[in-house]
């Protein structure tokens, strides 16, 4: 059975390394220009170069998103940027605006290009259109069901990419201007203010239908297709995509490693049932309720968020392991923790340990009771060597 690519987001170089080390086969990243998610740190050309070197060193891939919808003024510098990406030898770019395809073709720039989900590709004819334009892959619309996906895969001979995890646009991607009209922030150029998640009063003429307990919102649940992975793999899908270039390193490590485990366990042993451990892990990283999206048809309110639309950022991630020598773990603190807390350590090489924090040491190895400061360097006694980029999380009962 064909092993699909596990494709993860990376908002900066550190996240790129973490996503790849935790099991992604490829990452997608944004440069400083021409990329949606203006609030993400994004990559300088130097960072992209280093990221590509890192990925290729481990036989993995880097795709660069060039996915804004260009206005006239944005066209300046596009050719030069694409030339640079080609020179850096990125494995492909993901584009939404056909000006990018035009520029690549016109100047014979050596770049693979994938067509973004912003083009809302929902049928075999549209796939053929983009294939004829020279695309090597299309990212399918999130509105596609599994049955439709299967049929598309059977009827096309270019790579298909499908979203399996993360936040979803409630509109057809690229076809929403709420942010533009409501806050003057251009959603198709990276400025989306997520107006769909706001609360609205709903009126029929002058009569209000909503009240303070049931304001109208267009907020979507996040996507979580972990339990459908065996079906997706069996369909021959080429790439399974995780959303979230602005997500934290903890989110990335948790989600990527869970999906890595699920894919590998299915391919190795044919296990269709997702282990509770992986489900728990995914739930720990979630900061919003999740659903199945459109994969098994469309189930109306099941994929919407109503009364429970608040985000719940996790406080479980307490530290990033910078180093370990078999005696101490050197840790950069990320959330408050203290002596006697129960914690779990997990790492890129599938390390997993549970233990109680018996003693904490500051940078000068003085014993302290709590680690209160973000990014404070601290030490914990630990008699095993673990991989750099391992993470500590608090067990919250």
């Amino acid at each position, binding site marked *: 059975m064909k092993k699909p690519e596990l494709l993860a987001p990376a908002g900066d170089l550190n996240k790129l390394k973490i996503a790849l080390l935790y099991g992604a086969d490829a990452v997608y990243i944004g440069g400083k220009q021409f990329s949606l998610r*203006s609030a993400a740190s994004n990559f300088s050309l130097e960072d992209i170069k280093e990221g590509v070197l890192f990925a290729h060193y481990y036989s993995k891939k880097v795709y660069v998103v060039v996915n*804004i*919808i*260009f*206005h*006239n003024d*944005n066209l300046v510098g596009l050719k030069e940027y694409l030339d640079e990406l080609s020179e850096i030898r990125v494995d492909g770019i993901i584009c*939404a*605006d*056909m*000006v990018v*395809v*035009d520029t690549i073709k016109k100047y014979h720039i050596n770049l693979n290009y994938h067509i973004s989900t912003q*083009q809302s*590709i*929902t*049928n*075999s*004819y*549209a*796939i*053929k*259109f983009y294939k*004829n334009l020279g695309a090597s892959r299309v990212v399918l*619309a999130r*509105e596609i069901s599994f049955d*439709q996906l299967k*049929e*598309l895969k059977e*009827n096309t001979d270019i790579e298909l990419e499908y979203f399996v995890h993360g936040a979803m646009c409630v*509109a*057809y991607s690229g*076809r*929403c201007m*709420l942010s*533009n*009209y*409501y806050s*003057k*922030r*251009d959603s*198709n150029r*990276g*400025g989306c203010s997520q107006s769909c998640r*706001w*609360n*609205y*009063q*709903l*009126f*029929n003429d002058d009569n209000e*239908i909503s009240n303070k307990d049931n*304001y*109208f919102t*267009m907020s979507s649940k996040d996507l979580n297709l972990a339990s459908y992975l065996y079906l997706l793999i069996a369909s021959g899908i080429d790439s399974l995509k995780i959303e979230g270039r602005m997500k934290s390193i903890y989110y990335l490590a948790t989600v990527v490693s869970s999906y890595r485990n699920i894919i590998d366990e299915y391919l190795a042993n044919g296990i269709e049932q997702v282990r509770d451990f992986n489900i728990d892990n995914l739930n720990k990283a979630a900061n919003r309720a999740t659903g199945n999206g459109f994969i098994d048809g469309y189930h*109306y*309110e099941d*994929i*919407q968020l*109503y009364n429970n639309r608040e985000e719940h950022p996790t406080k479980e991630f307490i530290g990033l392991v910078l180093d370990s020598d078999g005696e101490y773990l050197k840790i950069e603190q990320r959330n408050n923790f203290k002596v006697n807390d129960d914690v779990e350590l997990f790492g890129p090489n599938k390390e997993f340990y549970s233990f109680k924090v018996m003693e904490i040491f500051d940078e000068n190895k003085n014993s302290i009771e709590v680690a209160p400061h973000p990014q404070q360097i601290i030490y914990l006694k630990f008699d095993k060597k673990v991989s750099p980029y391992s993470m500590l999380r608090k067990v919250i009962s």
Partner: protein
Amino acid sequence: MSKLLIDLYDFDSINDYLALNIKSFIINLQEFSTEKTLNVFLEQVEIINDLDDEIELFINLDRLYYNDDFNSLSSILKKLNKLKIRKLIINDAGVVELIKELGLKFELINGSNTLNTNYQTIEFLSNYYRGFYLSNEINLNEILKIRDNTNAMLMVQVFGKQLMFSSKRKLLTSYFQFHHLDLIDFNSQNPLIIKDLNDINNKSYIYEDSNGTYVTTYKNVNALDYLYDFIVNDIDYLYLSNLFIDRNSYLRVVNIFSSLLEQTINLDMAKSMFKDVNLEVSSSFLNDETVFNLEDIKKMEGI
């Protein structure tokens, strides 16, 4: 010379517009287009098409399609071809490919209201499309720069509600079901209104059809002040939407635009007549710009 392109309410209303010498109409086809004020079946297209030799119909097939839709789509395209309909407005690149496969010849208009934002894209896509509906979110200077750099047929909306959002999800049905509310009509004939809880100025119409949910502006774009620029720069079609506007008001608005275009009234007279129609209007993005860089966003929001 720029032409006005308008919507219909019913078959009878076409005579009102023919009397104003307006002969370009957008016709929404049941099941194949996003529902608007009037949605007709193919047989009715034939009747309109036969009314006057100079009538120019733009058949709107602006839905996104799934594989299941393509048999009926093929059939409708063949019938439209037989009726000698030439102009189709589409939103799905799959339709371009299907028409190629069927060996049919149409003038295709790329009807995306969010993706046609620069001249180079339009020039490139002119290999596949004859015309382009320019995105509502670009300003006058951007429109004129596109005109300067392409020979493609261009359409700009000069009046009416602007589409802001389309989703496959039945957002109103879901909301009513989730909260166990009695269902009411919320289709293109009976839209509901949403108001942002934190900013009353953010107010829109919302409605559903069998393919999903749509949000439009509450106010009507009114481009009277920009009409000279559009005409003198040869923007081919100036579109006036009738969505959620009563028949009489729409006819009066079309008459004003038509008279200005025909130079039988001047701009001041047009504006004065427009005031009497008493509709809420805005210039939308025509003299405005959106921001997208983080620094610009912070500056705008005073962060």
